[in-house]
């Protein structure tokens, strides 16, 4: 037991080491990390570095690739698209995910379990299959448009695919579990007595929500939002299939550079920009909320 505590302290950054304890950190937990770390370095970090290096060496040494990337209105628009889509998907996921997480948290376990089942099951289905399913549902001759026209609600089919609407619907559906699960965890930990206490002290429902509940839920929301935003930034399949070419996102541009145009210099430059933005957001998250929202405590 003591060993576990010491290890936990070591993982926690060593700040909790009491005087008198051995100063040398135990090798045990680190040895366990080594194989995973090694795998990441050899098969992930090194190839990524090699690609990034090409961004300043191909076709000739210098920053021409970055200049081309930033100097072109088209590429800037793709950056803008990437952030726009990610932001919209994040907001919609939060708006839909919060009530779902809340409901799941207050429902009796027996009722909540099957809903969880549905949520998790959707994550196990192949991404491409799910995206194609949305395509069939949303297209102009799809089920939704045909039903609406059949009911006389609309005259012409609504454009719901090959545009921002299609991307938002498809990606929100995929991202929803990543918002619901952390939020659920945070909400479950809130003692219902706190809200009763707020009411007893004369808080209105709105005040209780704004002053008590939201601050308590904020880390979960931030964690979910950041996860969705960052995952959305690098998304490829869904935007490529449900979005129009005018909604092209960064990941698709990188794939074009690497596979189709075989221009690895530009591909590396675009990848570096995406990586820097993602890491910056992660750093911001750590600064604002620590690791609390990421599953640690």
């Amino acid at each position: 037991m003591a060993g576990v505590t010491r290890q936990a302290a070591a993982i926690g950054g060593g700040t909790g080491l009491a005087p008198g304890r051995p100063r040398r950190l135990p090798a045990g937990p680190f040895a366990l990390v080594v194989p995973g770390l090694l795998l990441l370095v050899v098969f992930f970090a090194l190839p990524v570095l090699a690609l990034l290096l090409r961004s300043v060496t191909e076709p000739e040494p210098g920053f021409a690739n970055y200049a081309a990337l930033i100097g072109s209105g088209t590429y800037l628009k793709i950056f803008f698209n990437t952030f726009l889509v990610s932001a919209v998907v994040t907001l919609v996921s939060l708006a839909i995910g919060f009530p779902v997480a809340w409901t799941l948290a207050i429902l009796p376990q027996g009722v909540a379990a099957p809903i969880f089942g549905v949520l998790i099951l959707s994550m196990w289905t192949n991404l491409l299959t799910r995206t194609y399913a949305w395509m069939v549902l949303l297209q102009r001759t799809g089920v939704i448009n045909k039903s609406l026209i059949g009911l006389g609600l609309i005259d012409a089919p609504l454009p719901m695919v090959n545009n921002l609407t299609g991307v938002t619907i498809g990606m929100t559906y995929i991202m929803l579990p990543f918002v619901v699960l952390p939020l659920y965890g945070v909400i479950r930990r809130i003692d219902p007595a706190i809200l009763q206490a707020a009411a007893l002290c004369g808080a209105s429902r709105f005040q209780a929500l704004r002053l008590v509940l939201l601050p308590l839920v904020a880390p979960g929301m931030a964690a979910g939002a950041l996860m969705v935003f960052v995952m959305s930034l690098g998304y490829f399949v869904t935007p490529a299939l449900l979005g129009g070419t005018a909604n092209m996102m960064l990941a698709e541009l990188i794939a074009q550079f690497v596979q189709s145009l075989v221009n690895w210099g530009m591909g590396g430059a675009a990848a570096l920009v995406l990586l820097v933005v993602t890491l910056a957001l992660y750093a911001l998250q750590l600064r604002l909320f620590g690791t609390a929202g990421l599953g640690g405590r």
Partner: protein
Amino acid sequence: MKNVIAWAAFAATVGLAAPACAADMVFVSWGGTTQDAQKAAWAEKAGLSVLQDGPTDYGKIKAMVEAGKVTWDVVDVEGDYAVQAGDAGLLEKLDFSVIDKSKLDPRFVTDYSVGSFYYSFVIGCNQDAVKACPKTWADLFDTAKFPGKRAFYKWSAPGVIEAALLADGVAADKLYPLDLDRAFKKLDTIKKDIVWWTGGAQSQQLLASAEAPFGSFWNGRLTALEKTGVKVSTSWDGNITAADSLVVPKGSKNKAAAMKFIAYASSAKAQAEFAAASGYAPTNLGSPALMDPALAKTLPDQQTAKQINADMTYWAKNRDAIGTRWYAWQAK
């Protein structure tokens, strides 16, 4: 004890990997019904044990050749890429003492490649969904006469730009060098009515569901769709041909087997068999004689009267510049 288990696991892994090493060579194509047909007509009959892999990825070819670890021996690539990659030193020269090129369609033979199959971009139309079907490229670009969405191939490749220029009145023999400004201006006029397809299966889905009741398609995909009972019409007026090529990446460890495979795959019999299964045309001039005449009639090599050959040499030279401009235009 731990070591024993680790070594046993290692040995088991190596054992499992062994059959892969035992194959004579690896063939790579685009997957789907096309690669299935290539497997059945070529790989299983070439007298070699052939491992299938895919999909074709030009980034991977470059990575393998640069790293000196080439695991692909014969790759099915687009014709313009074959010319470009040959010039860039990414491919092995083919051994024409093994491969008989005397019967091969000379349009698709270079020092580094032979034609794999050839196809046409044709105008397809779902007859149940519209009153009238567009017959020419000019029709397909005429949104007043033929209102509705039209499907086009999304990636930068020979086909769409040529179609736009033909629709704008450029004579077939004056297409090259391509007037890109003019082509994009013409494409602008229908841009909001275009639905892009990224692969053959999607193009069939768009046409069958009438999401896009007409458009530009690979001829083989229309033949296949027709067989499923959809009322499809195909217009060969100004059909634009392009070919896929078979190439050997530089540094292939199974060069001899690769040459033998290509020799078989490009033979009259193998080409005829593949054409019958896929709806694409054979690149061996001896194949049509071996085929069912009714079937042979439906293939692009019989539609030469109003046929336009995409200029692979032009495309190979300008592939990168056109591609960059193409994707920028799409994203605009």
